């Protein structure tokens, strides 16, 4: 019925978590672009943020007999059974974006960044920037219980360890959203003497940071100067804020996880080369020095 | 003689916020007697039996069963003690099957599981004693109010080991069913049960009861032997004064001389009512008689646009009318007081005032609200005119006694000042005083030029005010009695037809 224009020599199933953020949308867009570029017939399944839907999708992929499966797992645990089924059906599985708590022989490789490391990079930047001055940090966490929230918090705390001048005074969840980021920041500002006691904000993603920046401005303070802002993801909007001097740093999480995955897959199909178990993407730190305006222009068309 | 008392209550007190419904009422029921409990609407009859059966917790007083004090906490308790009750409105579950309604909570079981076949068999056997041969597995809601009433009675009778309480069981029954009910009651009486019987029909009181207890405004007026209490005295006991001019049967009958105002030709709906012709003159009362399920309510619903007719025409003084919905009918000056007041009539949570003002407001549209003052005046006028017993007009209508709810709905339609009013069983559950009141009202209404179509199972009443009576049988208009022909005997004859066949 829908014969692809390209002679699709390979059918790949992709189980995506959902479309809960701009970053996620960009990842989906890029994955589709990459597949199209390589003439791969991509079967896309959106799980609406539910693991059970992802498992269902993977099972249907197996039932359809696809050539390979990409999974962006919503959570680390609970994959053993369905991965075993895929293995039994001799379908290679590649994990995107996060790893899982399963025996390593159940998947071919994982293309991910290191979430703890991201938090660490952000923390290090802050430690270096304040350079020993006392600093009260407020933290906007991701969705309670989600692995980025847990790991980015862990990494950041690790980086701060041993630097007693930095103290996390408040930490609340902003659910990874702008609205909540703004609302929670407002309450932080009220709770910490109108913001006078806050020297830096660490947000688990850029969206919350963007919301928080607005809250800071509305409170009559200058984000980026009165309160340092560091966050993770490197979505276009944060570069705009950085260009305006309202944000200080962000750690990139590349949405192009599918590219390396497809490359690995192609190599494997060609001559059976097994890729390494973990293909780590770079967690690049962007600061004001990296010409945020240009980065913004370059990122803006990627479907963020 | 306390020895033969099966159920006795002393000093029962029940207070609702703002009203004392029962004030130290004594009541004694003997073994093997039928005890009529009488009183005006709102006198506290239903409240008394609800206190006896644990549906309400009483605030004071003592209840004894076979000499031992009891305090049922809920109807289930009372059932276990051998007290079976039919509450005033049909209180069965419409979504359950007939058999399930009959055996709720005491279904026959096999190996711990309900045995539906056995239950259905028993249900059929039980109902056959009431000459009812219906599908007991069908949902209760698929039967008419009357059938439901019989089922409720059958259930209560089956439950009552010692006492049977019937709160207006005959309100929606016709003469034949009433006779059948009485046969069963006498049977139970012979077996030594005590039976409490609440009704507003005096004939029935005198036909079956041994003793009478009268309540008025929540107080006991007295208990008498039925034989030694003439009707007139009974009325006086109930009302607290004599009833004047109420018995005067319709000599004032409107001469059906006014011009024909409404003409319906071939109106009908497949599966509901066979096509019929009907003409209504200005200022006349047309009665409608028939057995249960003969299609009277359906006819009324067709006329009022509740059901849309699939054949026929309606005209008003030569003008074609569209009766596509109640709203359309109301716009033509129609009004309809439905038979099932609980489901079709009252808006339970709203106040008496709002219930009375509702139809008028609906006709005016939402943009032109009746001011609060107008509503108050309207409500007060009808509360007074129809003698609606309520502590104040802001009381939610569901807290009113059954008869008073009926009057409030009548008031709702009178307030719209309709040209053509359809009343389906308007006097159901209404006490003697109010009954007389309403009949007088009907007469005065048509004297003012309003036309009425009255459906009633009380043939005497129909005869009293109707200038014409339409008789229905098996969903068909079979006869029309006019003028001098309007008499109870003629109606009965027409209903029976040649083959004296009952609704299947």
């Amino acid at each position, binding site marked *: *019925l*829908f014969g692809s224009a390209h002679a699709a020599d390979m059918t790949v199933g992709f189980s995506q978590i*959902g*479309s809960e953020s701009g970053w996620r949308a960009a990842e*989906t867009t890029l994955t589709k672009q990459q597949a199209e570029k390589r003439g791969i017939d*991509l*079967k*896309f*399944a*959106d799980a*609406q*943020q*539910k*693991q*059970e*839907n992802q*498992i*269902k*999708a993977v*099972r*249907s992929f*197996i*039932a*359809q007999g696809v050539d390979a499966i990409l999974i962006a797992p919503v*959570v*680390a*645990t*609970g*994959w053993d*059974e369905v991965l075993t089924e895929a293995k039994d059906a001799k379908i290679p599985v590649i994990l995107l974006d996060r790893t899982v*708590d399963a025996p390593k022989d159940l998947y071919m490789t994982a293309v991910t960044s290191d979430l703890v490391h991201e938090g660490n990079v952000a923390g290090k930047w802050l430690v270096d920037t304040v350079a020993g001055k006392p600093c009260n940090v407020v933290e906007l966490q991701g*969705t*309670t*219980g989600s*692995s980025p929230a*847990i790991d980015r918090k862990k990494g950041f705390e690790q980086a701060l360890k041993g630097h007693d001048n930095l103290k996390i005074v408040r930490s609340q969840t902003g659910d990874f959203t702008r609205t909540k980021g703004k609302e929670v920041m407002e309450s932080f500002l009220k709770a910490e003497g109108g913001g006078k006691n806050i020297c830096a904000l660490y947000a688990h993603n850029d969206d919350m940071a963007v919301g928080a920046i607005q809250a800071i401005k509305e409170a009559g303070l200058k984000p980026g100067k009165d309160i340092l802002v560091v966050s993770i993801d490197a979505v276009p909007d944060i570069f705009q804020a950085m260009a305006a001097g309202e944000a200080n740093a962000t750690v990139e999480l590349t949405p192009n996880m599918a590219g390396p995955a497809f490359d690995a897959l192609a190599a494997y199909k060609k001559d059976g080369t097994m890729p390494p178990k973990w293909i780590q993407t770079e967690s690049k730190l962007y600061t004001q020095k990296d010409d945020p305006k240009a980065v913004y222009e370059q990122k803006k068309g990627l479907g963020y | 003689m306390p020895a033969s008392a099966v159920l006795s209550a002393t000093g029962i007190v029940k207070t609702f916020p703002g009203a004392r419904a029962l004030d130290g009422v004594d009541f004694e029921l003997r073994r093997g007697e039928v005890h009529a409990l009488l009183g005006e609407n709102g006198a506290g009859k239903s409240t008394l039996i609800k206190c006896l059966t644990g*549906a309400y917790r009483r605030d004071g007083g003592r209840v004894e069963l076979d000499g031992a004090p009891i305090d049922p906490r*809920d*109807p289930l308790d009372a059932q276990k003690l051998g007290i079976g*009750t039919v509450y005033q409105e049909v*209180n069965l*579950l*419409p*979504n*359950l099957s007939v058999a399930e*309604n009959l055996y*709720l*909570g005491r*279904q026959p*079981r096999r190996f*711990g*599981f*309900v045995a*539906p076949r056995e239950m259905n068999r028993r249900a059929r056997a039980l109902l056959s004693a009431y000459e009812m041969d219906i599908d007991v597995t*069908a*949902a209760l809601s*698929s039967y008419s109010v009357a059938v439901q009433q019989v089922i409720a009675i059958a259930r209560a009778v089956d439950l009552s080991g010692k006492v049977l309480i019937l709160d207006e069981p005959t309100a929606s029954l016709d003469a034949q069913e009433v006779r059948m009910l009485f046969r069963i009651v006498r049977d139970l009486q012979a077996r030594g049960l005590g039976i409490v019987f609440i009704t507003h029909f005096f004939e029935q009181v005198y036909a079956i009861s041994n003793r009478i207890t009268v309540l008025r405004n929540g107080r006991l007026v007295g208990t008498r032997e039925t034989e030694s209490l003439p009707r007139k005295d009974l009325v006086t006991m109930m009302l607290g004064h004599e009833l004047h001019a109420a018995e005067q049967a319709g000599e004032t009958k409107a001469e059906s001389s006014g011009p024909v105002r409404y003409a319906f030709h071939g109106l009908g709906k*497949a*599966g509901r009512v066979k096509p019929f012709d009907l003409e209504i003159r200005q200022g006349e009362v047309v009665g409608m008689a028939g057995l249960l399920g003969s299609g009277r309510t359906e006819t009324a619903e067709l006329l009022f646009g509740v059901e849309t007719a699939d054949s026929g025409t309606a005209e008003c003084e030569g003008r074609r009318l569209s009766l596509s919905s109640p709203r359309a009918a109301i716009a033509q000056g129609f009004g309809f007081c439905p038979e099932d007041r609980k489901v079709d009539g009252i808006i339970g949570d709203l106040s008496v005032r709002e219930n009375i003002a509702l139809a008028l407001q609906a006709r005016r549209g939402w943009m032109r609200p009746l001011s609060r003052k107008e509503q108050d005046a309207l409500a007060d006028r009808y509360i007074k005119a129809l003698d609606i017993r309520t502590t104040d007009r802001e009381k939610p209508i569901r807290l009113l006694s059954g008869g008073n709810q009926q009057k409030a709905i009548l008031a709702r339609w009178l307030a719209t000042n309709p040209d053509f009013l359809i009343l389906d069983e308007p006097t159901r559950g209404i006490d003697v005083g109010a009954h007389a009141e309403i009949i007088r009202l009907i007469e005065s209404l048509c004297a003012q030029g309003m036309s009425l179509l009255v459906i009633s199972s009380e043939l005497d009443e129909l005869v009293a005010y109707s200038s014409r009576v339409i008789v229905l049988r098996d969903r068909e208009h079979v006869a029309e009695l006019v003028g001098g022909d309007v008499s109870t005997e003629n109606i009965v004859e027409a209903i029976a037809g040649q083959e004296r066949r009952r609704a*299947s």
Partner: protein
Amino acid sequence: MNAKTLPLIATLVIFIAAFAICTLQYPTMLSTRVIGNLLTDNAFLGIAAVGMTFVILSGGIDLSIGSVIAFTSVFLAVMLEGTSIHPLLAFVLALAITTAFGALMGAIIHFLEMPPFIVTLAGMFLARGMAFVLSIDSIPIRHPFYATLKSAYWVMPGGGRLTLIGGAMLLVFLAGIIIAQRTRFGTNVYALGGGAHTAALMGVPVGRTTIGIYALSGFVAGLSGIAYSLYTSAGYSLATVGVELDAIAAVVIGGTLLTGGAGFVGGTLIGVLIQGLIQTYITFDGTLSSWWTKILIGGLLFAFILLQKGILSLSSGRRRLTMKGA
């Protein structure tokens, strides 16, 4: 034929027709593998939906089940990874907690006369909150007993698997049908749905029944939590968000009236399968974007409801005609 079973039959007809259409488009869909997946993947939803059916039949609603499932899975994971008790004992403990939790909600609904919607909404917050407090991390369960349970499946001809949890769901449905149709408790549930006041006047023990219903729902949600933990071998406090809405939709698609008093447990099974079918169809198609997936799910939900209404009104029209003939 009984008027009451009509919605049930309508739903079944729609399901079979839908499956046939799917198969025409994707022939591989008619395989025991897909059918086995349909049972396994929807097991936890199906089990929970049985409890939801009872609640809805009684005229109530239970919004807490998704959270209770998540709580159960976290509880099991914490117990099995943190202590050395046997899974079976942990199961019993978990079921005891969730049943008591349901009973408590039922008691509040009955004794304090608060609307079920709100009480169970608070229950939903509370259960998830407790899961968070137990652990915000997702915890894998590595107990060997789990592996044993998961390897207990029956390979159907054609390679599909009927897993333990899939089978368990069918058993729970069977039990639910028997309880609803063949016990006094079941009839009392329908009675409450027909009108609590009337039911009370007819001698139905309203309090006991209400508490029983929510306790049952809690128990079944606990079972569903166990199934979920078997399904994923893990406990995760963010799992099964919004499952209550899926369950409600399954119950309603299955022909049960949300106002209570009418419907069948068996219908819910078909409702669950229809939802599973929609999901499977979407993955087989595999061209839909995230948003079109949502729109299509909503659209198909709507189509099913409409179809059901259509079939019902058509056949009720016919019934009226036959009544006239009689």
